[in-house]
């Protein structure tokens, strides 16, 4: 059994040493639970993982280079393909950056009120869809197949809502620079209300089914602790940071759009000594997502109760031609802080575009997290940091 081409020579040597107990295994890029095309090079001693080296790039599409040859509006569909589980939030993050760049232009009137509400509605719905997928696939990683189908059943309802809203189910291209692409279809708000009324009790059901399940606790509680210092040093954000106990959410701490108008909490991980739950373990990272779904429901309910203001849905402008300059803007995507760095020379195309991917940061912690654990724990970690390879590789 020869090793596949490995990163370093000494590991090749290890593999060929006849009396070594260690075995090098390539997990992925085709593997049921590496969430896409992540490849892990595992150095195993029996079931114990001595080292797990992530290899990325199987889904690299040169998004950032492509973007230099596209007009700003043409870039939006490309952002859909980054984190395809939460495409709305990716659109939004990019548009926020461009709008910040354009705000230096006196002719740009800013995003209309109604569009902001529509963005919040779409963004939070997509956050629920994204966390539902994280919940479902995490259950499947741990070995419970049924939660996955429950999650997909509910996610389907959100996708149907999005289909009504913008005609697409996965790559929405809905949020545009200066607003959104379409207004609400008739009866849409009633559908949304129907969905959240249906969905809110389901979260407790899922908690009873999986979150507090004895075996699930055994598998996740106290496993792979990424404490606050470690999370910050790796640049992990979103649920991974909050699971470690740091109350940090851009929607609250640096409110963008209209998030300062809504009342919601930031769920953080908690230490539960009687269950053995530690801040920053797999269970806490997962639990934060479950709690965040409730908060998103809260926000959506406030949008629906408050009613949407009338008015245009997109800022009137002749062309998206931001003034020369550079900007780094970030927003809270379901998987963490999504940043866009854009340099403009005043033309219709960016000179340089760079995306800061939350999944990439979280993935980089995998190597340290997984040392000394078991194969089954690696799966638990990958699921709990909830990566989407489309965003890691871009």
């Amino acid at each position, binding site marked *: *059994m020869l090793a596949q081409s490995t990163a370093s020579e000494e590991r090749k040597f290890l593999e060929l040493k006849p009396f070594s107990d260690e075995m090098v295994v390539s997990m992925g890029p085709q593997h049921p639970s590496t969430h896409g095309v992540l490849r892990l090079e595992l150095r195993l001693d029996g079931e114990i993982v001595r080292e797990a080296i992530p290899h990325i790039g199987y889904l690299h599409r040169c998004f950032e280079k492509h973007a230099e040859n596209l007009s700003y509006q043409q870039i939006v569909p490309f952002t859909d393909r980054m984190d395809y589980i939460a495409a709305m939030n990716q659109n939004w993050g990019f548009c926020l950056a461009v709008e910040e760049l354009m705000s230096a232009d006196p002719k740009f009137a800013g995003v209309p009120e109604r569009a902001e509400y529509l963005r919040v509605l779409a963004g939070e719905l997509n956050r629920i869809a994204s966390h539902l997928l994280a919940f479902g696939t995490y259950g499947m990683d*741990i*070995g*419970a197949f049924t939660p996955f189908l429950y999650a997909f059943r509910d996610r389907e309802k959100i996708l149907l809502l999005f289909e009504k809203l913008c005609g697409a189910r996965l790559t929405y291209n809905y949020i545009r620079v200066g607003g959104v692409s379409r207004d609400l279809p008739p009866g849409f708000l009633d559908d949304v209300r129907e969905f959240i009324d249906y969905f809110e009790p389901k979260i407790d059901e899922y908690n009873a089914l999986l979150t507090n399940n004895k075996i699930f606790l055994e598998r996740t509680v106290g496993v792979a602790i990424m*404490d606050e210092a470690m999370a910050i040093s790796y640049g992990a954000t979103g649920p991974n940071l909050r699971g470690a106990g740091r109350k940090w959410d851009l929607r609250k701490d640096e409110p963008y759009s209209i998030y300062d108008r809504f009342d919601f909490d930031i769920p953080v991980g908690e230490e*539960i000594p009687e*269950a*053995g739950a530690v801040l920053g373990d797999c269970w806490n990272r997962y639990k934060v997502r479950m709690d965040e779904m409730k908060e998103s429901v809260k926000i959506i309910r406030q949008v629906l109760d408050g009613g949407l203001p009338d008015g245009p849905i997109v800022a009137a402008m002749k062309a998206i031609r931001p003034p020369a300059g550079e900007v780094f803007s970030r927003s809270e995507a379901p998987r963490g802080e999504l940043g866009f760095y854009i340099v403009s020379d005043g033309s219709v195309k960016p000179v340089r575009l760079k995306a800061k991917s939350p999944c990439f940061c979280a993935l980089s912690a995998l190597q340290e997290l997984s040392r000394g654990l078991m*194969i*089954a724990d690696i799966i638990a970690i990958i699921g709990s940091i909830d990566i989407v390879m489309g965003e890691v590789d871009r």
Partner: protein
Amino acid sequence: MVQQLSSQFLHLTSLLSVETVTPSEGSAPGGNWAQAFASQFLGFLPGWIGLVLVMSVVAAVFVAVVPLVPLVLVLMERKVSAWIQDRVGPMRVGPWGLLQTLADGVKLIFKEDLIPPQADKFLFRFAPYLIFTCSFAVFAAIPFSQRILVSDLNIGIFYIISISSVVAIGVIIAGWSSNSKWSLFGAMRSAAQMVSYEIPIGLSILTVIMMAQTMSMEGIVAAQNGAFAEGEPIITLLGVEVKGTILDWMIFRSPFTFLAFFVYFLSSIAEVNRTPFDLPEAESELVAGFHTEYSGMRFAVFFIAEYANVFAVCAIAATLFLGGWQGIIDEDQFIPGLLIIFGKTFLLVFVMMWIRWTLPRLRVDQLMNLCWKYLIPISFFNILGTGIWGLFFREDSALSIGLSFLIISLFVVSILGIVFNSFGKLKPADQTALAGNIGAANLQKLKTTWNERHGQQK
């Protein structure tokens, strides 16, 4: 006419139920109906040829009929999982999707027979046959009714245990010969798991053997049709005298056999590699475990063997603990024994499926903990308890049955109380410090080491 028929029938029955250990005239010890049949009708042939002929016919019938069970079970699994998961399951092939498994089987037969170039070709081909044979050979000793039993071995249950442990070897061969690291992992896990869980299975069965004082499957069934079937009816229900054969089932005979039933059932789930103990084929970890490299009909053979195993362990549980083919009300057998044991078995299979589609999977160390730290001590306790029980109650009496029923009820009520009290609450995690899973006690220690390591890396 009727008399004639019944006398013929009696004759046949006597043929079928020849005592196993009868060092009698002519027939060798352990001789059975096959031998009797052979000597009766194929007497013109030398003895062993007749026997071989008869056994070949029986084996052919079994190999043809038994795969129907997996066929049904696969469909049942898909339908049960569909109901649990809010779906409808297969609906297209045949009415209500009934022919889906058949269609899948046909598809698998027509698939190309792939053998990986680096595989050990002989062992790769051999492994499915070994597993298939062993899991089917188990059926030979399970009594499906008074008359449907291939061979009533005097060591029936021992034969079943030994034959079914050969499956582990087949799994290892499959994993090793595939020359894939994932297959090997699955095989090693499977070997460790099957070997470990055979101990609680064997020990639980031992309690039954102690109660029944025989290893013959037929004898164990007969032992569950004892004193109370003859005696006074316990209650009269709608004119039917309930003579309490249900209390003669092994599971209710003593509190220890009651416990042993659950130990057996839990361990048998592990034995047949199903969730929450499906580590050898853990899809999310090992792709497909030991049969990763198999495709087409060879894969189907694994699949059939797996479900045949599921059925076999449930049928054994039904035979050993739930009275076998005997009915609930009395021994008159309104309903044929075959239907009764199938009903009991399918109930147990359903519970297995229910568990499979509800629970997540344990980790390797937790799996071993459960076996060695909990199930095996409980089994030993059972054996001790059964011995003491047998010392006090040599024969089943109203006292022993009543006492056992009382203890069992107390046990069940207390368990239910614990379950409902802790429902929805967080339960303390097991304090295992192995491989990063920590309990509250080790929390601080682990945290400091973690911080140290983290600090060093900076």
